[in-house]
């Protein structure tokens, strides 16, 4: 039996966390969730997810900083990270993509698009 891809969703906004988790689950993934960036970094280190959906405006440290810390874990150096956020300023988006993000999705998002991006990130080409 093939293993289900593991997806970590990090968002402090419960509704978005639930929506994104549900979309990832419907895409066939095993989902882990965290409501803070530091919790997300710890969960990522422990679970070694196949991709991470990461909010940018988190209460403790930013999603960008969390991504930098996650990338320092050797096993997660190349894990696909998709930022999903209300932050649409050009500089912010450019910085996120420069961090090697697999995607940048603006909230409120189109569920179909998020699902497509999750599948593209976790399924082999």
């Amino acid at each position: 039996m093939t293993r289900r891809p593991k997806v970590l969703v990090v968002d402090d906004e419960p509704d978005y966390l639930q929506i994104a988790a549900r979309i990832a689950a419907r895409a066939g993934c095993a989902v882990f969730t965290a409501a803070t960036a530091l919790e997300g970094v710890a969960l990522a280190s422990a679970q070694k997810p196949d991709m991470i959906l990461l909010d940018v405006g988190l209460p403790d440290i930013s999603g960008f900083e969390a991504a930098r810390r996650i990338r320092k874990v050797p096993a997660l150096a190349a894990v696909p990270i998709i930022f999903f956020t209300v932050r649409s300023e050009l500089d912010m988006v450019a910085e996120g993509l420069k961090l090697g993000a697999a995607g940048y999705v603006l909230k409120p998002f189109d569920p179909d698009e998020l699902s497509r991006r999750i599948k593209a990130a976790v399924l082999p080409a």
Partner: protein
Amino acid sequence: MTLTAHCVTSDAGVSAFLKAALKGFRLKFYPSAGAFLRAAPGGGLAVIDAFLPDMSGRDLAAVLRGDQKTRRLSLVLTGAGPYSPAAAAVCFDNGADEYFAFPPEPRLFRARLVNLLARSCAAGPAPAEKPAEYRFKALLVSPEARTAQIGRAALKLTALEFDLLVYFLRNQGRVVSRSVLLEQVWRQGMEAGLRSVDKRIEALRYKLGRPFGSKIKTVFGLGYIFKL
């Protein structure tokens, strides 16, 4: 003068179409949203593919429209065919000047791009704003005049209901949670309470009547989605 078009696409088919349809243009290709944002040209015309490897075309349009440096670009969005009015409306709402289902008819595509470039050169760059009004069949909503009508009958909406309707129109096809509505429409965080969102949406559905009110759908446990 050589016309320049910035082409943001990772799709070989779209690239080939653009090279054929825009012969004589100077074409600059960018394989991703990130590559285009690094260049961030301040003027001219950009043709943006709907589904880029790192971002959707419509999200990229919203980002470009929101920035002082890039807001004056003429933006042409292409979507995967067949033509969808709803997809086109979302693209226009995010700031697109033109929208084409792919593949468009090459001569029409070229002519409209030439016109767009000519207008932007002649009139000088004009800042793009949100659409002045939304029209769907008999429903007409003007955010600036703060009027909404179905046919000739004006809708009697409260200020909050009107703001809610405009927010839905600007975010068609997207799930919006109740707490996001509280933040974006009520602008007072959670104090108003999630129940007040449900009540106000019920009132808005009732006032819109069945044909349009039914377009505000409840996504159980998540929030609402507005699809026309």
